[in-house]
């Protein structure tokens, strides 16, 4: 709490002096902390080459170069202590770096920060004055249509779209060519997921990244454009506000149950049907498949948005997710190859070769609804098991089709005759897919019978072919639930009324009795 306030104070009013605002830093103690907690990823020598490093994309920071992405200093400069402290304390969202506040003591975090600086000779050079930039504060009206429109104009004019794409999902034309200074492949950020921005997702954070750039990556600083009078500081703010507007107002909250309202008429089968605008979206995070052999540590799809409706006969599920490519896409083959070479998988697996895999999405249900209302027993969440299969819908981008089948473990999928109807649209880095199926089907043994008013277990899997994802290399989710809402039966209103009448009656009897007694007592 206190350190948080302190930090807040520091960020609001940065010290203009090169002297550290954090006194009493002990690099010897810092080394002990580093060796114990940091070296596993960042390596004993700070070169970002710990045992875990090969399994990560983005890679852990290499401290020896003194090069940092998230700073408040000008491009090319060293970060301030406050910048380092922020990364250590709060972590870097969207990467494997956790926040260490609450995990290590304040002194430990300051000491380890001092130790990290010893890896690079640049920090030792005290002639270099690390000065944070002076940032203006955001102009008002940031969410107005006009501000966003101005921001969008500069988004186009200063070339953001080249990498980040037309709608900002990191699908720009240059995206497949990107690499960082260490030659690792790097993705242009998906601007629709600001909760995964390393330096924070607020308008201020975005503005600062635009001013300082992300050193070591293709993301430049746009400070010089202001100097060149290409755009004003306020217009840079507008750009930041535009970028911010692409993401939801708050990070999505994960809820367990997707509620599918019952709608009159028939369900919308097209992904862009206007009916979908009125249906609640649910976000489900996906993580790498690191459970079964041939693991995958760098999932490209970080989550899916899910909507569902039904009309009493048919269920329509709309799944949309961000994907930089409409795979297979040969333009990305080289990039894909670089990813496969960069991210380690199982040590025993043969080296992978990039191939034009399609994009895929799977939705999984148990074959039969679990009995009972208590703790529901479900098949193994990772595509079932040989003896206890799951019922799955699998959609692929090429051939563009949806299948239904039984998953018997990750390696086996037995296709069933009936398939859900699937309609998908790819647009500017986003897939929108609608799958529809009748609630009841003839094959009751294998196909889940969707009943209203029950919690139906449901799980998701996604593959981005152009990121090398295929087979067991995918993004997975745990079990969530689908609930088909139904009109409230009249009985629901009767029993409360009965209960209320009984209560009222009893209450009146109690009052009457008490009063009679009271009268008797006062009578005496």
């Amino acid at each position, binding site marked *: 709490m206190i350190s948080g306030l302190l930090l807040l104070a520091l960020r609001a009013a940065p010290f203009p002096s090169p002297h550290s605002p954090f006194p009493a830093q002990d690099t010897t103690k810092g080394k002990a902390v580093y060796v114990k907690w940091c070296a596993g990823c960042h390596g004993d020598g700070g070169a970002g080459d710990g045992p875990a490093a090969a399994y990560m994309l983005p890679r852990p920071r290499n401290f020896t170069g003194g090069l940092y992405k998230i700073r408040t200093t000008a491009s090319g400069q060293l970060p301030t202590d406050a910048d380092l402290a922020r990364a250590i304390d709060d972590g870097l969202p969207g*990467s494997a770096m956790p926040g260490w506040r609450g995990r290590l003591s304040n002194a430990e975090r300051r000491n380890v920060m001092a130790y990290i600086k010893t890896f690079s000779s640049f920090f030792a050079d005290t002639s270099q004055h690390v000065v944070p930039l002076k940032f203006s504060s955001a102009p008002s009206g940031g969410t107005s249509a006009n501000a966003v429109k101005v921001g969008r104009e500069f988004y186009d004019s200063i070339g953001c779209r080249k990498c980040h794409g037309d709608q900002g999902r990191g699908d720009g034309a240059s995206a497949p060519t990107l690499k960082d200074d260490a030659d690792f492949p790097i993705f242009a950020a998906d601007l629709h997921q600001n909760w995964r921005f390393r330096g924070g997702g607020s308008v201020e954070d975005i503005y600062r990244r635009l001013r300082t750039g992300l050193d070591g990556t293709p993301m430049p600083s746009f400070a010089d454009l202001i100097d060149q009078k290409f755009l004003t500081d306020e217009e840079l703010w507008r750009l930041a506000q535009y970028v911010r507007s692409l993401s939801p107002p708050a990070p999505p909250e994960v809820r367990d149950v997707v509620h599918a309202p019952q709608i009159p008429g028939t369900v919308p089968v097209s992904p862009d049907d206007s009916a979908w605008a009125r249906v609640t979206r649910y976000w489900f995070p996906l993580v790498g498949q690191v459970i079964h052999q041939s693991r995958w540590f760098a999932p490209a799809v970080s989550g899916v948005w899910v909507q569902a409706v039904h009309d009493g006969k048919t269920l329509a599920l709309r799944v949309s997710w961000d994907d930089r490519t409409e795979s297979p896409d040969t333009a990305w083959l080289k990039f894909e190859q670089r990813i496969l070479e960069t991210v380690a998988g199982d040590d025993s697996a043969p080296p992978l070769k990039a191939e034009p895999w399609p994009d895929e999405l799977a939705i999984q249900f148990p074959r039969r609804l679990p009995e009972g209302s208590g703790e529901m027993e479900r098949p193994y969440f990772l595509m079932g098991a040989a003896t206890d299969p799951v019922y799955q819908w699998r959609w692929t981008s090429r051939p563009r089709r949806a299948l239904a089948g039984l998953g018997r473990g990750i390696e086996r999928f037995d296709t069933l005759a009936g398939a859900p109807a699937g309609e998908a649209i790819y647009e500017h880095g986003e897939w929108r897919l609608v799958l529809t199926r009748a609630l009841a089907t003839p094959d009751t043994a294998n196909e889940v019978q969707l009943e209203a008013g029950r919690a139906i277990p449901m799980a998701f899997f996604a593959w981005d072919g152009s990121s090398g994802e295929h087979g067991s290399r995918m993004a997975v989710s745990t079990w969530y639930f689908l609930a088909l809402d139904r009109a*409230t039966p009249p009985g629901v209103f009767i029993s409360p009324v009965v209960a209320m009448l009984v*209560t009222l009656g009893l209450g009146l009897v109690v009052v009457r009795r*008490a009063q009679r007694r009271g009268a008797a007592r006062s009578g005496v």
Partner: protein
Amino acid sequence: MSPRLPPAIRRYAEHPFWQAVGIVLIAYIVVVWVVPILPGSAIVPKSVVLQYMVTVLVGVLIYVSDNEERWRRFKEPIQAVLIEPRLKAVRAAALAGLTALVGLAAYGQVKTTVAAPPNLRSIHPAPPAEITFRGKTIALTGLENPLRQHPDSLSSYLAEGKRVYYQNCLPCHGDHLDGQGHFGPGFNPLPANFQDNGTIAQLTESFVFWRVAKGGPGLPREGTPWNSAMPVWEDFLTEREIWSVILFLYEQTGWKPRTWETEAGKGETGKGKGDD
């Protein structure tokens, strides 16, 4: 209560009825709002709030009724509300409020809500006496970490364990071994928190070996096997790698594994009470 209080407040503060109401309210505030803001704390689950409040309520009822005089005074306001003509409005309001509450509760019970089933986790499922590890039978009962028999090489085993952990366990169990790795939130149940004193700190190393080797699919039914994402590590790791990563877990968290009781320690009695 303090004699400094103004008489009007004192009358309430010293009245058992209002004391009871006050205690219940304070307890509720403490459980629901104060506990979560304590350092390192979190919200209290509704089931536990209910349990605590029932306990407090029973305690308060005992307090007001274990003394005739207090019991009489406690009932006074209730009696008054029931019979006093001047409190007619209060009486009606109380009756209406109670009725509405019952109606609401009844509605809450019968209305069709679909909720996710409760997430339960048996932290310590009963281990088998022996397991087969890649076709080899390993007796778990009485088994110690074999690597501890070589104190000279312990540091190299630890280094190996560290490598194994960072290459395999890190995405879920996290840098701090607290179950909050960057893939952790995607799973249910959440990955085990080794820093918690209720996990490895309570277990023998052979138990941990069993859980690591067999993973979620190897859990007995009582351990919610349909949920755990723990991989079957015998498919990936050798016996020695598992033992060394177990060494690392204890070293890094500072916990000591539970050891098997020896004959020498037999004089000590005691076992865990409660559900740990």
